């Protein structure tokens, strides 16, 4: 174990301080260096996504710390039904109670699992929560006011996909796929010795969660805004020419754009006249379940093998579901 000493930081701090001074003093005097349309749309998209996610991440971290400090473990396991079918239904409907966006979901679910929520219920909640809630339903209906059945289909397909994946995981996964560090619930709570009492202890845990999730969030935002500002939508639309290509294209787009589930319907609506309705459904169901930002966060929660298995299940279920739905609609 290395001993972390502030003096070791000096060789790194000096260049960092130099760069900061350069950035603050010299750059504003030479704005033409940074006057570049790509850089501007990158910054606008990056800060936009980050600010949009921030309240939700904070809320998720705060809820999770409140659960940790105030809610005894037995409560959670008492609330969740024992048998799988009611438990999965419970997981699907939990989103109505906690309308947290996908970014706030992971810290909350992590704590719930530590408090005894079974894995398959947690996965169902992660998948259905960002779609099956009143806010998203309202937004989708507004975006597709000319095609309201797409909003119903979105809710239905999200429910079906989440429930199906819940059953598959209930049946196939027996070992805990959580990453080791979170499983180590120490029996001896040291929170009582935190200076400042329980209130401060909640805040310290909130900031721990914030830094834990924040790094994945920032990397996700960097990738997403990079793609958004350097990629030409028109050049990608050519890929969508094949019969099933449009489904793959819209799903890929949902993955890379990492939109918030309350706003993605409006983006989907602009594709209404270029792509079949089924592929828009795939876009709106896959996006909140699986995208850049979110998959990095899932990788931090679960072991890599399980996370990849989950990604595959989501992809396969959404693809089959939306193709079937388009045949039926």
């Amino acid at each position: 174990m290395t001993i972390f000493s502030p003096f070791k930081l000096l060789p790194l701090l000096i260049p960092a301080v130099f760069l900061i001074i350069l950035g603050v003093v010299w750059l504003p005097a030479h704005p033409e260096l940074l006057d570049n349309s790509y850089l501007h749309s990158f910054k606008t998209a990056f800060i936009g996504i980050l600010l949009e996610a921030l309240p939700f991440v904070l809320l998720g971290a705060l809820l999770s710390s409140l659960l940790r400090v105030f809610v005894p473990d037995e409560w959670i396991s008492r609330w969740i039904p024992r048998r799988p079918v009611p438990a999965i239904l419970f997981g699907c409907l939990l989103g109505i109670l906690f309308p947290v966006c996908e970014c706030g979901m992971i810290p909350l679910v992590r704590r719930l699992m530590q408090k005894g929520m079974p894995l398959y219920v947690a996965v169902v909640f992660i998948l259905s929560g960002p779609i099956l809630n009143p806010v998203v339903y309202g937004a989708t209906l507004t975006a597709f006011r000319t095609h309201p059945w797409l909003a119903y289909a979105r809710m239905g397909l999200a429910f079906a996909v989440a429930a199906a994946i819940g059953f598959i995981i209930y049946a196939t996964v027996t070992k805990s796929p959580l990453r080791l560090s979170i499983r180590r619930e120490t029996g001896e709570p040291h929170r009582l010795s935190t200076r400042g009492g329980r209130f401060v202890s909640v805040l310290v845990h909130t900031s721990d969660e914030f830094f834990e999730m924040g790094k994945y969030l920032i990397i996700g935002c960097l990738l997403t805004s990079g793609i958004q500002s350097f990629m030409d939508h028109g050049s990608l639309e050519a890929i969508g020419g094949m019969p099933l290509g449009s489904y793959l294209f819209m799903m890929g787009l949902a993955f890379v754009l990492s939109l918030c589930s309350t706003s993605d319907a409006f983006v989907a609506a602009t594709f209404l006249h270029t792509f079949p309705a089924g592929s828009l459904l795939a876009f709106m169901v896959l996006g909140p379940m699986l995208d850049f930002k979110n998959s990095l966060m899932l990788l931090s929660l679960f072991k890599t093998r399980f996370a990849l298995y989950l990604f595959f299940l989501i992809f396969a279920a959404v693809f089959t579901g939306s193709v079937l739905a388009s045949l039926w609609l």
Partner: protein
Amino acid sequence: MNDPRSIRVHYLLRAVLLLGFALYIAHLSQQDALHYYVAPKLARWIRLCPVPLALMAASLGIQALFGKSSALCDCEHQLPRSLFRSTALYGLFLFPLLLGFVLPDRALGSAAAARKGISLTYIAPEEGSGERFTASNPYQEEFAGLAGRLYKQPVITVHPEIFSETFGAIDLYKEQFEGKQIKVSGFLYKGQGTDGGSFAVSRFLVQCCTADATPFGILLDPQTQISLPADTWIEVQGKLHVAQYQGKAVVQITPEHVTPILQPDTPYVYSNADSIAAWEQISGAPAEAGAK
């Protein structure tokens, strides 16, 4: 596990970063620059964020400075152990702050609109209009009602508050609006590449944040000579026509006046839950209100 002294350093660094985020949001909100990044309904929540952030920073600071060494423990949330990992982690959090403070805040423009693909229609073409301002399904009723009210105006002013709904209503009943006078403001979009030479007066519709910004534009007659550079804010007054553009019927304006204006305080437009009520409220006010 880290020793208590390094935990103190970590906590202090984190407290500084959290304070930095709180200050950045306060700065944006004070400069009235939040609307460059997020929609107003979300900005409310973001304005609240500095409070928990500052409280978190304060409690980390208390732990770092006054906490008992025996109580400092990172056994549940592991702090990074090596110097390299710590630098990477805190550098990552420093990046948005630097980017935010160093680069000026600016609205999205023509270049972003071209990359995202500008929408010249609001709805799918097969949803076309039937009889005069009647809705073929209940979800068109809002548009039908708005279109009926707009049609009675001698000059239709497109108010930024209900830009997308007005555009939707006109687009849905474009045949009926043929020849009507319209007045609209937005930034000048100049088409590049395949649609070279086309001009449009455009706005970005923002739902949540700039990541979902969708550019909407009303095409200007290609015959008009416009020497203004792209991204200039303009006000256009002219006649509405239906034109064929890349195989689709779109709304087009034959401009009579194109006047450069100052960039409005809120460059983006947002969706409105009840556009008819909003329209009644705006049109009750003096006519100049919409021109801003």
